């Protein structure tokens, strides 16, 4: 039972409550740094580190943090991890760090992270909070990567810097520019919602068939 529950918390972040596709949170890094797959993954990993770390601490200290000043406490904890992530990226991958620029410090203001602290980590035991943070961060990473991959393939004809279509590929300049981020995200959201709609419709059909089967 216990194991199932934490597994459930992990899974919900990846698909059903995906922070980007279902909750539409964290739009700022989502649109700003996804012009290549590498940037997207670096951003996703940094966010994952910060989210899991701060969820762990917040959940551990949830009974000590006074209710009145909880937001400032969350922010201090998040900022600590963001600083660690910032310097780690600077030391390990300076090139990516330079491209991500101001968006690494801005992880502090990522509403996805603060949202999880307020809505989940500060209310649930540590183990569940960490699983929830891991799931949410994975969902965020998947979303960032899918956006970054689409934008890099169309905008540069490459994935992870490897040319896919040869030299005469005509790059779609718009995909590297900000409008490309909005367009791609819009189209992905469209497909996500369409899929959910179809699934609900299918489940309704199944339920109706079962009910009429039971009646008849």
């Amino acid at each position: 039972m216990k194991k199932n529950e934490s597994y459930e918390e992990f899974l919900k972040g990846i698909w059903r409550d995906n922070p980007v596709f279902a909750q539409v949170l964290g739009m700022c890094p989502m649109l700003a740094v996804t012009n290549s797959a590498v940037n997207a993954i670096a951003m996703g990993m940094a966010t994952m580190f910060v989210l899991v770390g701060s969820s762990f601490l917040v959940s551990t200290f949830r009974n000590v943090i006074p209710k009145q000043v909880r937001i400032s406490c969350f922010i201090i904890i998040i900022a600590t991890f963001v600083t660690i992530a910032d310097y780690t990226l600077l030391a390990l991958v300076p090139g990516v760090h330079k491209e991500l620029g101001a968006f690494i410090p801005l992880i502090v203001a990522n509403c996805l992270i603060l949202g999880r602290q307020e809505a989940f980590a500060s209310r649930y035991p540590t183990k569940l909070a960490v699983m929830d943070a891991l799931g949410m961060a994975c969902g965020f990473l998947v979303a960032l990567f899918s956006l970054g991959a689409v934008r890099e393939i169309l905008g540069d004809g490459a994935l992870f810097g490897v040319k896919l279509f040869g030299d005469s590929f005509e790059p779609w300049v718009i995909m590297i520019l900000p409008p490309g981020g909005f367009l791609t995200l819009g189209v992905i959201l469209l497909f996500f919602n369409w899929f959910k709609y179809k699934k609900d419709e299918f489940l309704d059909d199944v339920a109706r068939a079962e009910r009429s089967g039971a009646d008849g």
Partner: protein
Amino acid sequence: MTDKEPRLLLFHAPLLRQDMTTPRTMRDVIVALLPATAAAVWYFGLGAVLVLAASILGAAVAEWLFAPRASRGASLRDGSGLLTGLLLGLTLPPGLPMWMAFLGGFVSICLGKVIWGGLGHNLFNPALLGRAFLLATFPIAMTTWPVITPGEFGVQAGNLALPFMQAGADGVSGATPLGLFKFEQQVTPLAELAFGKIGGSIGETSGALLLLGGVYLWIRRDLDWRIPVSILATVALFSLVLVLFDAERFPAPLFSIFSGGLLLGAIYMATDPVTSPVTPKGAWIFGIGVGVLVMLIRVFGGLPEGVMYAILLMNAATPLIDRYTQPRVFGHEAESS
């Protein structure tokens, strides 16, 4: 309605019928564009036909794919999608690869029409939105103008580029009158502007034939004459004032009107009934706004041509204009302002 005999008539709602239907309007606009299109084919060769066909096909495919299954045929038959494809094609350079034109037509319908809720719900002119997308996506291909070859029905090398591949080096490339004026201070003679012996987009070659189509539409009551008249008058006035300051630096009024896509935009795109104001006063404001923006972008902006952005910006202002120019309802007091 003159029938005096008392009879029981059973009809549902539209009781007064006119032949003013969407398909008729769309057909009229297409007919009005035919002379200019034919002139373009004469000047640019079969490459222009390929670009137009690809963009119309792209629009039609998108219409068909995204229509609800029940009305799949209807959305194609009313001709609005085809007209969007044709208008988009006319704003493209004749040497554009066909796959880009196809993509443009597809995006026009998807982003310009379908996601807003279909015909009549879109905020922006779909054809211009498609062009804006193409210009941002393929800036080089969209500003490469082939040299005109009157009477030779050849195909441009770029037209046949494989999907997703570059157009390849074309060797010779021409320039548009506006580009020549802006970057090389060269004025193109008015006769060439009016009859189309100029480089540029497919549809903007022949100003006189575009005007002819506009007159046809006006006679058929398919367009609000206030919009093109106010746009052209504003542009003429604006450039007259500029010329009075410095005749060397600024374009003459007639040059402003006949160069670039102004006539195409003013007559066929700004007048799109969906994306322009419905009130007469609003139409004047809309037209003046487009005219001022066109001149601001052309003269003071970094781009040689600004008709597309001018119309798209005023499209965005259209709901506001409509709201503030509602006529007073009969019997109501005038609103104190």
